[in-house]
């Protein structure tokens, strides 16, 4: 492992990759600050650039930097404007915005920066410990287990979608899987579901779909309902925190780094759930008099979600790097980018491409450090970007989505597909259908079918399901994950209606 760390360090410390970290963090911070643009949109927009660089380590380092930067930038707009750019930083505005209103914006931003740094760094340390262990277990997996594991991952994503949403998340996942079957698969060498259209032979473009699912609807929402970006005029000063304050938030940071990391590892949970849960837990275990403070500008209430969301971002890399299975929309987009760069993440990644694996982990440390030392002094200036008029911003966002789709395929039809899918995605967003499961399903679809087909061939039919106990166990878990939330919701409803429960 020490050898791996050294390989990673030398790769990550090359001039090019250092530049990538810095550039990624800065770009992510800038765009993540804009309310309404989440990390998925930003990464989707950056992917064509990353892919055309050709070097997988550099590309992944850039995109990971963008991811952290976006989360960090999102907390800045949460604190200063009460307008979170990212769902994962909504909880940061509960106490961060009241602090800013009390004239303590500088202090709030410092706490956010330190908490993010600590969460990200401790998360990366845990990643170093857990990823190799999980990889070595994952090496024992066969196609059948992989298939089952993907089923579990996809079901978990649907199950975590929230009450009343499980069926919607399921249908979106299945739609993604269905879209993945369009085109000529490597497995059969036969065009499927192309309806005779030549442009569909190679299937739907992954970047086009990512742009259409995230960047375009978010931009359209910004057009439809302009967000009020006023209120950032106050001078941001007094960035220091005092000794007692540091002592108060230290245990919070410690607890939330661990909790956030493990929530991030779970598929479908991610930074948003981690930050809300972190906030709730810290409020519940705080002493009575401090509980009153929560929601009115408590430093603990700010440190908790900030630590948890960064630790969760790092945690979400565990399933991606060790199993090759993304647990969130963002890591799904990263997986798509890696596949486009001819790297297949999974347990073999550590053995076949150790420099990529370790360089990404080392660049997490560097990225967090860059965010801390670069952004802290620059925050007052970076916050000025919030004043960029939307009349200029929105055409540029739309242009970058178009460019991303065009560069990926070099085909103008792709742009029409982008607009069409974008309109569909906006309608789905209106009706409260979650969009991330669709993209995750789309990206996993090909791998899932490959593993399914391989196990079918090995066992000459579906016998692999019951002949391999681990596969069976995983599939049972998947079934429970899907059925349980709706069952519990129904029982709760029945109880509320005063209907007796049948045994």
């Amino acid at each position: 492992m020490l050898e791996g760390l050294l390989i990673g360090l030398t790769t990550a410390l090359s001039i090019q990759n250092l530049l990538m970290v810095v550039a990624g963090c800065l770009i992510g911070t800038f765009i993540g600050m804009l309310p309404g643009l989440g990390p998925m949109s930003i990464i989707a927009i950056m992917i064509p650039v990353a892919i055309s660089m050709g070097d997988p380590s550099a590309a992944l380092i850039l995109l990971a930097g963008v991811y952290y930067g976006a989360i960090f930038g999102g907390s800045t707009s949460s604190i200063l404007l009460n307008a979170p750019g990212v769902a994962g930083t909504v909880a940061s505005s509960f106490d961060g915005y009241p602090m800013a209103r009390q004239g303590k914006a500088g202090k709030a931003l410092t706490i956010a920066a330190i908490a993010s740094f600590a969460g990200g760094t401790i998360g990366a340390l845990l990643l170093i410990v857990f990823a190799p262990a999980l990889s070595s277990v994952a090496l024992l997996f066969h196609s059948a287990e992989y298939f089952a594991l993907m089923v579990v991952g996809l079901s978990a994503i649907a199950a975590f979608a929230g009450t009343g949403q499980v069926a919607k998340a399921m249908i979106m996942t299945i739609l993604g899987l269905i879209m993945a079957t369009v085109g000529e698969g490597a497995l059969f060498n036969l065009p499927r579901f192309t309806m005779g259209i030549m442009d569909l032979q190679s299937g739907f473009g992954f970047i086009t779909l990512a742009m259409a699912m995230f960047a375009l609807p978010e931009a359209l929402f910004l057009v439809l309902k302009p967000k009020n970006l006023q209120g950032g005029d106050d001078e941001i000063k007094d960035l220091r925190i005092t000794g007692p304050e540091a002592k108060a938030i230290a245990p919070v940071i410690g607890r939330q780094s661990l909790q956030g990391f493990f929530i991030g590892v779970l598929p479908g949970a991610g930074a948003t759930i981690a930050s809300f849960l972190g906030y709730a837990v810290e409020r519940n275990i705080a002493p009575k008099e401090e509980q009153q403070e929560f929601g009115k500008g408590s430093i603990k209430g700010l440190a908790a979600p900030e630590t948890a969301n960064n630790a969760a971002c790092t945690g979400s890399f565990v399933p991606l790097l060790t199993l090759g299975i993304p647990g969130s929309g963002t890591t799904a987009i990263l997986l798509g980018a890696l596949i486009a760069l001819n790297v297949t993440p999974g347990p073999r990644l550590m053995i076949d491409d150790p420099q990529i694996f370790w360089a990404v982990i080392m660049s997490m440390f560097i990225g967090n450090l860059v965010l801390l030392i670069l952004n802290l002094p620059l925050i007052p200036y970076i916050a000025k970007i919030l004043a960029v008029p939307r009349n200029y911003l929105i055409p540029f966002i739309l242009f970058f989505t178009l460019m991303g789709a065009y560069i990926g395929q070099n085909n103008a039809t792709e742009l029409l597909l982008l607009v069409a899918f974008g309109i569909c995605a906006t309608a789905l967003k209106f009706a409260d259908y979650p969009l991330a499961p669709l993209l995750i399903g789309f990206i996993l679809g090909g791998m899932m079918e490959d593993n399914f087909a391989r196990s079918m061939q090995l066992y000459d039919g579906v016998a692999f399901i019951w002949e391999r106990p681990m596969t069976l166990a995983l599939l049972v878990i998947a079934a429970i994950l899907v059925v349980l939330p709706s069952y519990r919701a129904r029982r709760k409803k029945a109880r509320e209606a005063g209907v007796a429960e049948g045994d």
Partner: protein
Amino acid sequence: MALDRWIALVLLGICLAYGYAAWFTMDGNLAPFMRRTPIWPSTFPKVLSVLGIVAASCVLLGFEKATPKEADIDYRRLWEYHLGQALLLLGLMVAYALCLRPLGFLVSTAAFLILGSFILGERKWHIMIPVSLIAAGSVWYLVQEVLGIYMRPLPGFVGG
């Protein structure tokens, strides 16, 4: 019927059409040697179509009551938002897609950026025009020279 159930109906239609294609049309022209393998190109789609029909029906029939939460944008009152601007921008994107090849990258992009901010209500031409031209030029330079992807810069009739 609420929008989410209308969408479920559309998705159900898609799954049914997909299922029809998978169950009844795909296996006809399968090569004989492939018929003996346990997995056919249609196997996985068949499974998906069944699952999709079940999930879409669940939403359509309202088995799972969502707790109504306050949406960011209420689609029932869509015309109260800046719908015109959004539709014009979408139209502009389609126009851009159609003009990119014949008009060349530089002209289409600069026009797209200028018209985009015009639609959003910007009228400061002395800022809009230089910003768009510089942006179009620098993106073209980056894509063409740094990333090495060819994009025709000028309209076809100029010979670009």
